[in-house]
């Protein structure tokens, strides 16, 4: 277990996965960490479709630092750093989809069974899997409460004919927020995985490969 810096679990997760693809690599963040401080890493990890799973505990607030607004706070959310109300929030689902993520799901901490299943599917999926987890912060977020969510979330699985491989349909679902909030697998597609196109990994994990200085001999000749 590697507890990394705020905003930075994704890059070390990528490094570890490439060093040893036999490892199951799961990165865990909060919403500020993933969509604020780590926003750039999030976009590019999705774009390159690295084979890691990203669990984001999204409570729409910065809890540990005691209640400031986060990138996903609803419009108008009043906090000490947003006395006039938070502005337009990041939409992590649509952001993940357009960035190129191959598995984009949203879960709810109030439905652990459903969430567990999503996490399992994300882990077994080959490619970048985002599970944005709606997880109320009972201390600092009095707007997006368990009650608030229960009134709004609905499962995509119970919607007939929803095709999660249809990007346009997925983007439409991604934009649904407010009165109705879809949870489940919003987008899923088998796409080229970054690690698959690294010839070095075809021989096995980097970590178990031999270190042999003599292998550089042929390179020296190129400079003579």
């Amino acid at each position, binding site marked *: 277990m590697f507890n990394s*810096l705020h905003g*930075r679990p994704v890059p*070390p997760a*990528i*490094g570890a996965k*490439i060093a040893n693809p036999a490892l199951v690599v799961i990165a865990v963040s909060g919403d500020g960490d993933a969509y604020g401080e780590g926003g750039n890493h999030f976009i590019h990890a999705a774009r390159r479709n690295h084979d890691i799973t990203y669990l984001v505990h999204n409570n729409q607030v910065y809890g540990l630092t005691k209640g400031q607004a986060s990138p996903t706070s609803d419009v108008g959310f009043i906090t000490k750093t947003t006395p006039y109300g938070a502005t337009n929030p990041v939409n992590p689902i649509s952001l993940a989809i357009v960035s190129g993520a191959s598995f984009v799901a949203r879960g709810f901490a109030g439905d652990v069974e459903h969430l567990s299943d999503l996490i399992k599917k994300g882990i077994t999926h080959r490619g970048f899997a985002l599970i944005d987890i709606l997880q109320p912060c009972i201390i600092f977020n009095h707007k997006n409460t368990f009650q608030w969510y229960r009134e709004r979330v609905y499962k995509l699985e119970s919607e007939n004919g929803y095709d999660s491989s249809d990007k346009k349909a997925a983007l439409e679902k991604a934009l649904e927020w407010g009165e109705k909030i879809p949870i489940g697998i919003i987008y899923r597609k088998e796409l080229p995985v970054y690690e698959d196109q690294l010839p*070095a990994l075809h021989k096995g994990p980097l970590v178990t*490969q031999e270190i042999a200085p003599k292998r550089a001999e042929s*390179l020296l000749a190129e400079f003579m």
Partner: protein
Amino acid sequence: MPVDFNFMVGGEAGQGVQSVGFLLAKAFARGGYHIFSDQDYESRIRGGHNFSRVRVGDDRIGAITESVDILIALNRDSIELHQTEMADGGVIIFNGEKVKDIGSNGSLFSIPLERLAREKAGDKVVSNTVALGAALALVDYDREILNTVLIEYFGRGKIADGNIAAADAGYEYAKAEYRGEIRHLKPISTIKRMLLNGNEAISLGAIAAGCKFMSAYPMTPASPIMEYMAAKSEALDLVMVHAEDEIAAINMAIGASYAGVRAMTATSGSGFCLMVEGLGLAGITETPLVIIDGQRPGPAVGLPTRTEQGDLQFVLHAHHGDFPRAVIAPADVEDAFWVTARAFNWAEKYQLPVIILTDHHLATSYATVEPFDLGQVTIDRGLLFSSRDEEPSEYMRHRVTESGISPRALPGLSKALVVTDCDEHNEEGHLTEDAGERTLQVQKRLRKLSSLKQEISTPRQYGPQKAETTLIGWGSTYGAIHEAVDILRKEGASINMLHLSELWPFPAEAVADALSIARNSYVIENNATGQLARLIKTETGKDVSGKILKFDGRPFTPAHIAEAVRKEAVKDGDNVRLCRPSTDVVSGLRQFRHPESVK
């Protein structure tokens, strides 16, 4: 008479200055000569003024020098900017059909480069090679060697054939038309040496040491390292990830290293600024890491394609809090290979970040080097966890030990659970705020530095053991100071050199001893404030007599250093003085005038 012959190729960006310079260097290296070749170019893709110097000698060379014997001027600016640098008997090859009314400098030798290219080789695009052939004729060099080099460079085929025809045309023309004295530079041996620059040496050192993972973001002058690693990734079974930014670059390398692979990243000062946060992550999680900082003039964007030694104090202190690191600054191309290969051992043995400081001058200058003896590259992975020595269920990543080094288990390769944290942690690696645990971990980490200190060698010395004056330098100034000592000793000066390539842990005793022996000591640095001088003061308590500083983005030359030392020698007192070279010795001040201002 020892051979010390200087070529220069000048032109606009995009004209092929670097290619011509490289081919010249290669041709003479093949003839057994020692080479030192640097690149001076602007931060632009077209236009401006670029030049490359190729210094050819029959003994090892470690620096460039001012005077030019043959200048291949691919445009007018090159003539106007460099004609006062020509040595006696020097020749300026230029295309008189394109550059007219250039004055009557005795060095000028006009060759119809484009006409010959079109007539003899079918295309004016090879006019540079016409000049190349002509230059070789003026020194009576073996043209077959150049032809071989051209075939290797372009690959067998029409392009190589066209270039060979062009080179022949230039050679014949010069032989027939040149009225001046022909120097004779014949091949001197068939010894096969490598011709490479600092970036290439570092890449080779990393590969030889078993570096299997590199993540980086392009930044001059370090980008060629990531490009070389990418080019060799399939053949050598390694991975190079072009990260989205330098923050990702260092963090990816840390993740790969945590998972058990030798990993590195490379950047320049501004990129290292972004990596500073990650540096501390490596420090507190005790994750081995090698970071190359190719210095260039700062702060901020500074001079992107030029050289400086301005990051020393920065990398020594970067990040908040106290934790151990190593800082090494190779002296030359050969040193860069060995320092890099050894850096991975240090990183893994002591489980800390190792920063290698190079600079644009070292990164991009070519030198001839005897082929590296790969049998001398040792691999030491340090204290690795083994289930034979320890129960996996009892494994603690940050176990407190006498040396401060904890056995390192690699995640997933055994039943040991490997936990670490960027927060302060206990021996198991779990977050803790306990005062006692905190104290133990801080002390443990710092203790590792005492072990690392045993590995530091004494700084290099050159010249007599005891001398009146000692010149002190670090990193890429090695060659220039070395040669300056030769120049001054020939004049009867009592002088030697102390040169540091290991900066942290600092060899305080050796430096203090050297300072107590010499009457005068001058630190020679490519920065504005004398960063090594400050380090010497903090670590030994001693002041140096003076500082010779250059921070115009250009490297020192031996003559410049020698002149500065002569000036220092006549003044009294301990005043710090900036070095102003005398104009009849050095044309340095002319080098950075913008072409427009010449008219």
